[in-house]
């Protein structure tokens, strides 16, 4: 991503001839050593049929996160296990699984519906499978707030730790709706890009004048959140601290944001307030920026309004330009990008931003990554139903 590469491509694994949108960001198939995904390396074949792909992706990401964290209390550490929870959400969960079961009913094969159908489709089963795998017996929860799911999961999990419900929370989001039914649904709501089917890497172009909708992505992002002193005491590798979290509702429309971007503004303001920060303290914003004609500029205006004269010092980019919109996983994956921006001192680029539809004092990191001094980052996610969430990460120590 920092090299300006895009993960978007033509959909190959199902027939897209009836769909106006034919491109997506899909997890590349290959070995773990190659940095790609072969589910067989992660989940026994006999267990795979018990979970929709979104759960499989959640389990893979959670396994990666838990291994990296070094926090994996054994059977003899009951108290530690009871103080470790899981909160992994999804925007729409096992939609392809529901579709397949519906087809059986339609074909008169109702008795052929698998006993694993319901547990495969349920959104909270991502958290369930992770807890079963590792014996994490703390709070077991799942967020469902459309495209704001990932940020809500991270923020709510951090609050459970702050409220002393747990010492450690495995938190994130997962989505795997790049299937005919998911694509058809978002096509019907006129949300997807359709003008770049022949040039997929150009499809996601936040703030660019030629943008025409978002590009669907799939994947999962999972982090291990831990009470600070708990993490320090065990010598954990601390990537960043969650220091702020804000939420708001639009109370306006089922899919469209308010025309003044006020919901985004209030979520960001609430996050800053909870962190006792001012806009000047933030060096980088990972935008929701989905590449839809309306949403991108409204978010930009909301940031400009909140930052005021500080806007000129701010970098803001949309990493959806490279991986597409992962719906319920977006906020978690972008939270990880935000944390890596702090670790690496680099603002990731907004690809395909050649001609902004609206000028701004904010540096939107067009086309190329920028080395910057980044200690504190705010990440936005907004969802259908008018739900908005912002989270703030700061360099640890």
């Amino acid at each position: 991503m920092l090299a300006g590469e895009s993960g978007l491509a033509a959909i190959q694994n199902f027939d897209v001839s009836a769909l106006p949108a034919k491109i997506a960001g899909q997890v590349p198939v290959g070995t773990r050593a190659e940095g790609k995904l072969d589910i067989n390396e992660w989940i026994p074949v006999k267990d795979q049929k018990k979970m929709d792909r979104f759960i499989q992706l959640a389990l893979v990401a959670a396994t990666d996160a838990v291994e990296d964290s070094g926090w994996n209390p054994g059977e003899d550490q009951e108290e530690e296990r009871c103080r470790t929870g899981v909160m992994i959400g999804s925007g729409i969960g096992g939609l392809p699984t529901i579709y397949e079961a519906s087809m059986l009913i339609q074909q008169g094969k109702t008795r052929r519906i698998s006993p694993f159908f319901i547990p495969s489709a349920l959104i909270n089963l991502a958290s369930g499978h992770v807890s079963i795998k590792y014996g994490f017996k703390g709070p077991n929860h799942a967020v469902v707030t459309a495209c704001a799911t990932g940020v809500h999961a991270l923020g709510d999990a951090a609050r459970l730790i702050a409220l002393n419900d747990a010492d450690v929370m495995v938190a994130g989001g997962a989505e795997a709706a790049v299937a005919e039914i998911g694509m058809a649904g978002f096509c019907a709501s006129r949300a997807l890009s359709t003008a770049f089917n022949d040039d997929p890497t150009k499809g996601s172009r936040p703030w660019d004048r030629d943008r025409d909708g978002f590009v669907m992505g799939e994947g999962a992002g999972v982090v291990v959140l831990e009470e600070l002193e708990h993490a320090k005491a065990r010598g954990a590798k601390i990537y960043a601290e969650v220091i702020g979290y804000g939420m708001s509702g639009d109370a306006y429309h089922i899919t469209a944001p308010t025309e003044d971007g006020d919901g985004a503004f209030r979520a960001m303001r609430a996050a800053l307030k909870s962190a006792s920060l001012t806009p000047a303290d933030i060096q980088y914003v990972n935008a929701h920026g989905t590449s839809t004609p309306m949403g991108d500029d409204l978010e930009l205006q909301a940031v400009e309004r909140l930052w005021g004269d500080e806007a000129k010092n701010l970098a803001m980019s949309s990493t959806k330009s490279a991986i597409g919109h992962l719906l319920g996983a977006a906020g978690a994956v972008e939270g990880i990008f935000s944390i890596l921006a702090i670790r690496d001192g680099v603002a990731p680029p907004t690809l395909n931003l050649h001609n902004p539809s609206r000028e701004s004092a904010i540096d939107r990191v067009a086309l190329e990554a920028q080395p910057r001094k980044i200690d504190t980052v705010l990440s936005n996610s907004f969802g259908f139903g008018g739900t908005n969430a912002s989270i703030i990460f700061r360099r640890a120590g």
Partner: protein
Amino acid sequence: MSDTADKVKKIVVEHLGVEESKVTTEASFIDDLGADSLDTVELVMAFEEAFGVEIPDDAAEKITTVKDAIDYIEKQKSA
């Protein structure tokens, strides 16, 4: 060994992800082969599909070993 027995064992190996050598005629799905109650429901469905037989729920509940499955299916087929 009968064709039915071979086919039943093959289905059990595939669905439960266990080694063929463990799938003895006497093996219990739950006690010996690591299945849970949902696995056994799915196994019975797989038998129905593969052999073209209907196994009602009350009969399915009594099929707990490989032998139970073979016997039930052979009885249905000869009926």
